[in-house]
């Protein structure tokens, strides 16, 4: 033994270990390899489904985004049209209604005034409707609202030794001229 090692001691220990590396017998190796090769190999998981699922998810996402975009556009367009229609309705309807209302109100007022003045003194009725005294001495000339005097007639009423321009209904103006001898119609809007 010592002689063997003396013979091989110059060889590195690694070379000795590699040179004497055990090798399996052929019969044993064949039996083990047959066991391995006969056994079914593991089945690799299908990775083709992942791209398919990804493509499906991508397609669904695109469709959803498209629908959202279309619906959002329709909604925005509808809202815009609704806004335009609202503005148009608001622009057209109120003016028409207002003018009608004014006319109606004026006509109604005129009708009522006329009805009342037909029975009573129109001058007093007109003055009382404006919240003034019935003697006609109050200065009514300051109330010169265009709408308010649209269907009224100016009359130069003699009161307190001077003429005061008042606006009364046509019937009231006629009554003024009838019952007040000094009252007269204004000339160019002035008494």
């Amino acid at each position, binding site marked *: 033994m010592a002689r063997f090692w003396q013979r091989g001691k110059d060889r590195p220990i690694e070379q000795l270990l590699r040179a004497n590396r055990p*090798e399996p*017998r052929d019969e*044993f*190796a064949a039996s083990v*390899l047959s*066991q391995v090769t006969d056994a079914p*190999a*593991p089945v690799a998981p299908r990775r083709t489904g992942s791209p398919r699922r990804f493509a499906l998810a991508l397609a669904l996402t695109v469709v959803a985004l498209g629908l959202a975009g279309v619906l959002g556009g329709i909604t925005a367009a509808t809202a815009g049209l609704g806004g335009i229609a609202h503005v148009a309705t608001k622009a057209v309807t109120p003016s028409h209604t207002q003018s009608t209302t004014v006319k109606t109100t004026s006509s109604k007022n005129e009708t009522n005034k006329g009805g009342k003045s037909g029975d009573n003194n129109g001058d007093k009725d007109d003055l009382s409707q404006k919240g003034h005294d019935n003697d006609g001495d109050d200065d009514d000339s300051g109330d010169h609202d265009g709408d308010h005097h649209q269907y009224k007639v100016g009359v130069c009423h003699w009161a307190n030794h001077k003429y005061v321009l008042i606006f009364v209904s046509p019937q009231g103006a006629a009554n003024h001229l009838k019952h007040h001898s000094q009252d007269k119609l204004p000339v160019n809007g002035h008494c």
Partner: protein
Amino acid sequence: MSPVDPLARPEELLRRVYAYVAYRVHDRNEAEDITGETFVRAVRYRDRYDSRQGEPIAWLLGIARRCIYDASLRPRQVSADSEPAVGGDLEGEVVSRVTLASALTALSPSDRDLIALRYGADLSTREIAGVLEMRPGSVDVALSRARSRLKELLESDLIHEQAPARKIADERL
């Protein structure tokens, strides 16, 4: 399930695993039994192999180490015709191989494991570190010490005196 078959190259794996086991147990019949059991388990659990955990040889050596440990727990049957696993039939090399087998038997189990992993399974230092869960630097140091001890045993005349007694004790791990 891992898509990689760890037993795709069984011939190479068989040689490396058998060499490792033979360096560990030193008995041809026992080495074949343990190697066969290793591959039976590998075939059974090949679906559980995860390539991210390491190379197939490392996975197989892990199984082989477990099989060696399980074999060490069983009562050992020493047959009369048992022969050293580290050896062959070439007459000119018989003496040297028997001497090497005796020296390996005299090593400690950890040194023998390192020698078997390095020169039997032909693992690199990094692979050995992965199998033994050690740092590569520590593996190099431990492997160097194991080689030194083996060299001392080969140079010593105590191999023949100590080997038969220590062989049985060490192979029980």
